[in-house]
């Protein structure tokens, strides 16, 4: 009798436990993001997540600021290998191959349950999906995306006798404009350079733009082949190097990514190429009227996409993955994608996000924010390969060697191509 009672009691207890577990089943998930853009943007992310939690009381999101882009990648890989991955993380678009090779991310297709889900994923601009697709699957949701834009100082244009409303439209005009815009003082020192493009942090990104304008790509879409030594790429790098070495209209040597916009804002460079992500900052800081346009062309127009996507981790528990997918859908919904773009300056990645009332009002007040959209027809995917960090290193070193004049473009790119082929050999079948 006693035994039976005890059995019943434990049964009851067990039932009670299951019930209470089910009723308080709040899914908690970690979301790593590298928004390396200072305090305000962190607050925007936190605010959006707060609204998501309000709409989904059964989900709790721990938004974890995870350092710079490379640090976020190490943190995610470390946690994944230890079997404790976050449910979702924001990592650069070009990390896709690395993440697939490491087998740590789950394809987004697995979570598309309804027609509405599918329509949502189909709503992104194709250009921003190229870096998410591999092997017939979609691996990432576009989040903080950017492209390169061409900025100029209207006051400097006026001083040089140029029409301040029209920027250079092709390579020849870049040289012509920049020659007029390069100003020297009495002793022959340059006080204002005609044009600048950054050559640290992501030199390959800038070269990719010049190559695209010259009708070439740096690599194919399988992530296993590079075309560094193609004559069009050599010409593109030669053009970049010539601006400093032959025409003497660009600051010679390597130009720091972070000081490039600074030089522009301080009036030491009249025209610069930099990310669209810097537009809001430049607009707010510049003491002179600025002009912004899409990248000048050569044989054709062309510019790469850049920035980061949201990835769902393969080894996270299923209920966390489902919750993460909900969060991704929320953050990249029409309304939020548009709000995110307005508040941060990142490019809105959905066609419908450009049509919201908020976006229309914003574009009316700040038309320059629409320039990146004009570039959509000319966008190419960001150069990405397997083992991308090492391949990037090879091409970045080559670019810098040419810009400082220690190697010829042909020689440097040939060596980089050989190095890349060696790194990519294991992936080529």
């Amino acid at each position: 009798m006693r035994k039976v009672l005890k059995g019943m009691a434990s049964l009851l207890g067990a039932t009670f436990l299951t019930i209470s577990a089910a009723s308080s089943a709040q899914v908690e998930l970690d979301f790593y993001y590298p928004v390396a853009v200072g305090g305000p943007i962190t607050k925007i992310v936190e605010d959006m997540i707060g609204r998501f939690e309000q709409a989904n009381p059964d989900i709790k999101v721990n938004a974890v600021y995870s350092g710079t882009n490379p640090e976020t990648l190490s943190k995610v890989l470390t946690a994944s290998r230890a079997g404790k991955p976050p449910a979702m993380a924001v990592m650069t678009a070009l990390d896709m191959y690395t993440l697939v090779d490491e087998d740590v991310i789950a394809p987004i297709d697995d979570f598309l349950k309804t027609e509405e889900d599918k329509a949502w994923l189909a709503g992104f601009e194709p250009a921003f999906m190229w870096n998410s697709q591999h092997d017939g699957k979609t691996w990432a949701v576009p989040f903080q995306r950017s492209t390169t834009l061409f900025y100029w100082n209207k006051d400097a244009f006026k001083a040089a006798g140029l029409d301040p409303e029209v920027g250079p439209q092709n390579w020849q005009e870049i040289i012509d404009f920049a020659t007029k815009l390069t100003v020297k003082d009495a002793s022959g020192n340059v006080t204002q350079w005609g044009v600048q493009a950054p050559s640290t942090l992501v030199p390959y990104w800038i070269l990719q733009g010049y190559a695209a304008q010259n009708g070439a790509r740096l690599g194919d879409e399988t992530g296993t082949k590079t075309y560094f030594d193609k004559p069009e790429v050599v010409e593109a790098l030669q053009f970049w190097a010539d601006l400093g070495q032959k025409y003497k209209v660009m600051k010679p040597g390597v130009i720091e990514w972070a000081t490039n916009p600074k030089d522009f804002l301080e009036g030491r460079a009249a025209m610069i190429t930099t990310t669209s992500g810097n537009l809001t900052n430049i607009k707010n800081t510049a003491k002179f009227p600025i002009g912004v346009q899409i990248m000048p062309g050569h044989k054709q127009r062309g510019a790469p996409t850049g920035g980061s996507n949201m990835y769902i981790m393969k080894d996270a528990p299923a209920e966390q993955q489902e919750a993460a997918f909900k969060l991704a859908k929320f953050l990249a919904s029409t309304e939020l994608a548009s709000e995110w773009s307005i508040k941060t300056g990142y490019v809105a990645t959905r066609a419908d996000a450009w049509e919201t009332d908020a976006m229309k009002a914003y574009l009316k007040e700040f038309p320059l924010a629409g320039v990146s959209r004009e570039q959509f027809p000319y966008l190419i995917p960001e150069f990405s390969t397997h083992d991308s960090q090492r391949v990037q290193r090879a091409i970045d070193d080559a670019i810098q060697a040419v810009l400082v004049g220690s190697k010829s473009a042909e020689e440097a790119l040939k060596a980089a191509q050989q190095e890349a082929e060696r790194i990519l050999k294991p992936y080529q079948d």
Partner: protein
Amino acid sequence: MIQANASPIAGTNGASRALETVGAYMLALLWALPFLYVVWTAFHSAEYEVNFNLFAPITLENFVTAWHSAPFARYFLNTFMLITMVLASQLVVCTLAAYAFAKYDFPGKTILFFLVLVQLMIMPEALMVENYATAASLGLVDTIVAMGLPYLASAFGIFLLRQTFMTVPKELDDAARIEGAGPLKILLKVYVPLAKPVYIAYGLVSVSYHWNNLLWPLVVTNSVTTRPLTVGLQVFSSPDQGVQWGIISAAALMTSAPLLIGFLLFQRQFVQSFMRAGIK
């Protein structure tokens, strides 16, 4: 320090001594330049970042902005707890291990000591994944303990203290033993006091290392309540939106101030201890 450079052995006459002094100042200036720039940008508004003007208005605004950009008070506390824990544990573990290696004979001593030395050759970053897995299996991810755990013992500390303990004359040890002191008492009354300069030098090196350590703390922690200062500083690295050097400088100055003050206070002992270690 300058006097030390212009020692009577090197400078035989006034001219060469003056030359050396000038040289020393030049080198010191070169070394201090980045630091001076940080101080300059931290106390001036953005337009003076690249324009030098002696009478530029001094502002504390950068410090205010930096302080409010991240919960620095909490980060200071976390860093403080981290280095206290690491240093306390390192001192105890290294002292005991070094004492055993220096003064006792036991089977496998040489092999064990070599194993300790092998650790000196391995970068802690190479073990990050393994360490993370250990921390995760102990349920310690996102705690201050996890940040310190891989550093609680230090091969460098054991090696340094063993070398120091080996130089202590056997007579002192014997004298204490005759007085009836046990092994622990001998350690505390004879060896530790004699190794004091080495302890100070090692302590400063260890504290500054953990004060500056970034990658492991960043990887193993997730929340404001556990993260140290270095992670807080990361908030300012923003290549997309342009870099505000003034605020970065102010934050860097603020977070390194305790270390700088500590070094200035202990400078004499710090330099002396290394010099003495060299003489031995």
